[in-house]
């Protein structure tokens, strides 16, 4: 099977800024991968490129063997770094909206997660706290049976108990062949659930290895290694 993400010399520049400066990598299927890097290292830009929200300046990028577009969006579930949902909708309406939009959306699963997080389906997005909104968004994203989940900072704004729930959801609910790519800087929280990590800085890959290899070779946690590599 082809890797879920393949890219070669991928470059994306913004005026005065080289956000992604020549990334080449392959992300296999069935893995949970952490995309780790300091602020402004190009994590979100890379995820947006994979999702077709941005187009590369040069280089090649294939998702599920295709250039990002309508076909790849069918199999990619993306959690953006900011909310784009309609504020006036309640959760039940949002679920219906997603159900209409995505053929792989599993409504029963969405309601199950809502119930477990004690969220009220009738509550409007606009009346929710920031953390609760993030939970709702993540539920919507994880309720799809996608091939690739692109999660941009999924645990940043929620409390530790909800963090555990979210990580639990990620390891129990993703497809066996699906891949989850998580960008975050809360490394200690996620490293136990990751297969592989990609360290990115200044738009290039600094290191790419499996978590167990890192611990084996370096004798330290990914979190510690990160602090060393990116010491300010």
């Amino acid at each position, binding site marked *: 099977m082809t890797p879920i993400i393949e890219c070669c010399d991928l470059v994306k520049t913004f005026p005065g800024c080289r956000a992604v400066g020549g990334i080449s990598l392959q992300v296999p299927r069935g893995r949970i991968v952490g995309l780790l890097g300091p602020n402004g290292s190009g994590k979100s830009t890379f995820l947006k490129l994979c999702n077709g929200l941005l187009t590369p300046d040069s280089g090649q990028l294939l998702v599920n063997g295709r250039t990002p577009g309508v076909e790849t969006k069918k199999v990619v579930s993306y959690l953006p770094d900011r909310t784009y949902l309609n504020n006036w909708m309640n959760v039940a309406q949002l679920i219906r909206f997603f159900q209409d939009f995505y053929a792989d959306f599993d409504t029963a699963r969405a309601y199950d997660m809502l119930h477990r997080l004690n969220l009220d389906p009738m509550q409007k997005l606009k009346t929710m706290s920031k953390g609760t909104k993030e939970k709702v968004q993540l539920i919507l994203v994880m309720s799809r049976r996608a091939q690739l989940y692109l999660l941009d900072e999924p645990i940043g704004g929620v409390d530790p108990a909800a963090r555990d729930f979210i990580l*639990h959801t990620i390891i*129990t609910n993703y497809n066996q062949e699906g891949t989850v790519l998580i960008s975050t800087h809360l490394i200690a929280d996620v490293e*136990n*659930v990751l297969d592989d990590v990609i360290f990115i800085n200044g738009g290039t890959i600094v290191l790419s290895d499996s978590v167990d290899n890192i*611990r084996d070779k370096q*004798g330290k946690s990914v979190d510690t290694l990160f602090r060393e590599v990116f010491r300010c």
Partner: protein
Amino acid sequence: MAWSLQSDRPLYAQLVGQLQRMIVTGVYPAGSRLPSVRELAAEAAVNPNTMQRALVKLEEDGLIFTQRTSGRYVTEEQEKIMETKKEMAEQLIFQFMEDMSYLGYTKEQTMTMINRTEEKSK
């Protein structure tokens, strides 16, 4: 039993150790069926691939075996389990002796101390 994982050692090796513990202490008795990879992974809050790797290692060591359709089972050979238990005990003793010698105690002093401390706690 709760899973406790340290952050500076490979996860899969720690999972192997904890599963061995559960088997030798009878949490999963000889011949019993183990939960699925996903269940175990969720319980330990680790990635299923990592748990899978740990189970493969235990299988190579002969402590568990796979029944093609129905899942993984703990070995029925008591000897094998006892052997693992002995290895684990030895490991603990080595570690302990090393720590004691680091503190400056000889083997004899350590032995005397063990007996004395044990009597005190009775």
